């Protein structure tokens, strides 16, 4: 169960902050991963990967972001229920979509917007459903 939170707001400010950080790190990780992937050679052999990481440490930064994300996620889970936190992180589908359009000039039209919103709603519903059924 979640901890007691200040009665003035449904979620404490610190919880809101770590959730916002979780979405930001999700988004940052995806954008950096895209950038790293586009700089890697087309054939992903282990040698080619190691050689390009020597020249361009961006993939290591991607791994670093995901480690930070894991640590922050554990902080989130200490403070709130998974079934509360997980649906909210689906918001990163929207932030990735908007920022990739802005930074990389990716297409952003009604078609893609509809697809992303359906996915967002679906992930929120799947992760919001009861976490555990009653034991038989």
């Amino acid at each position, binding site marked *: 169960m979640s901890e007691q939170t200040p009665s003035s707001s449904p979620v404490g400010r610190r919880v809101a902050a770590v959730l916002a950080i979780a979405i930001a790190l999700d988004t940052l990780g995806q954008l950096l*991963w895209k950038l790293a*992937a586009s700089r890697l050679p087309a054939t992903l052999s282990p040698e080619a990967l190691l050689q390009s990481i020597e020249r361009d440490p961006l993939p290591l930064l991607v791994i670093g972001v995901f480690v930070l994300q894991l640590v922050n996620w554990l902080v989130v889970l200490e403070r709130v229920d998974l079934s509360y936190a997980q649906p909210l992180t689906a918001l990163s*589908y929207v932030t990735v979509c908007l920022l990739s359009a802005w930074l990389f000039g*990716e297409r952003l039209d009604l078609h893609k917007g509809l697809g*992303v919103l359906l996915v967002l709603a679906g992930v929120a*519903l*799947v992760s919001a*459903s009861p976490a555990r*059924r009653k034991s038989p």
Partner: protein
Amino acid sequence: MSARLIGVLLVLVCAGVEGLAQICLKQSTRQAGRRAGWIATGVGLFVVEALLYTAALQRLEVSVAYSLGAMSFVFVALGAAWLLGEALPMTRRIGIACIVAGCAVLASGG
């Protein structure tokens, strides 16, 4: 096959691998004797998934690849229901339908 189609297929394989990895991790909590083996298998699957997703990102927009990756929720929910006997309540079924519909829309985009 177009680069886009290959990219879409790669993300779908990633989502399937992710589903298997999550089921391995869940199994590690259910079979204390084989805990390390299940965790090692799960982590190994995550590494394979990371390589496949990188290849997918070389062929797709990140906004499409990341959203298509939500198919892992579908594979996890279905795999957990079939293999682990977990429940599939109505909210989760509707959510699965929304994700599949959204991914179909994204995959069909020009």
